[in-house]
């Protein structure tokens, strides 16, 4: 049973990592376009079109498909209530990736929130 738990946690970590890769590629594709939020429909469609021809966006899409496949494997092995909460692991990976890769800066409030998520996942895994 313990072995099963580690396998499930490993798979959840893997799907969270794929999610993070997807978000990183998406964000980096959007950042490269210098788009300012607008309600102008023509500008929005132009932005979406420019985004769709970015190879990085499709690389992100590939990762999200892989993430879905691993997620389905997880769901065949674990209770939904466990998997759903443990999947919040992506908050941790995204925080780390935003900090180290995208060089974003965040407040102590965000680190505190990320810490609470870590603690919650530890409790859920032990229960």
């Amino acid at each position: 049973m313990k072995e099963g738990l580690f396998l499930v946690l490993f798979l959840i970590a893997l799907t969270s990592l794929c999610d993070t890769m997807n978000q990183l590629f998406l964000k980096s594709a959007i950042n490269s376009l210098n788009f300012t939020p607008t309600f102008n429909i023509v500008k929005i469609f132009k932005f979406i079109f420019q985004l769709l021809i970015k190879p990085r966006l499709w690389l992100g899409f590939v990762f999200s498909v892989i993430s879905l496949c691993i997620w389905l494997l997880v769901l065949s092995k674990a209770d939904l209530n466990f998997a759903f909460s443990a999947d919040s692991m992506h908050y941790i990976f995204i925080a780390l990736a935003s900090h180290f890769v995208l060089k974003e800066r965040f407040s102590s409030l965000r680190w505190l929130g990320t810490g609470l998520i870590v603690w919650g996942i530890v409790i859920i895994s032990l229960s």
Partner: protein
Amino acid sequence: MFKKKVTLKILLLLISCDILETAVHFFFKKSALAQSSPAVVDLATAVVFLKAVFASPFLWAGLFTVVLVFIIWSTILTKIDLSVAVPIASFSYILVPITSIIFLDEQITVFRWVGILFVLAGVILVSLSSKERIAQVK
């Protein structure tokens, strides 16, 4: 540019998002449950498993609902700030376990509820900090 005020219309959209988000996970779980889980996870067994799951109507219902959630969520975010929307949308952290108990016969101990509440509190704090960050940029 963004309004902070949550009108009744936006609140209804947010609750719809919660319910549909929960439905997504219920559908995915149903599609995975219909197949026997591979005992050993290697590429060959995973492919056989996934082929069977992708043939399930539950999976496609789930994917369709994902698109629906994305459209409603995008609409909501044009009206209110992310730091306001996420805490209300995080209600699915409670709805999913409740759905698991009622429809999937899963059991949840008090200890696990405590863990779920920690995750929920963390998600809310992370989303609240986005407001702080936008204020700093301005």
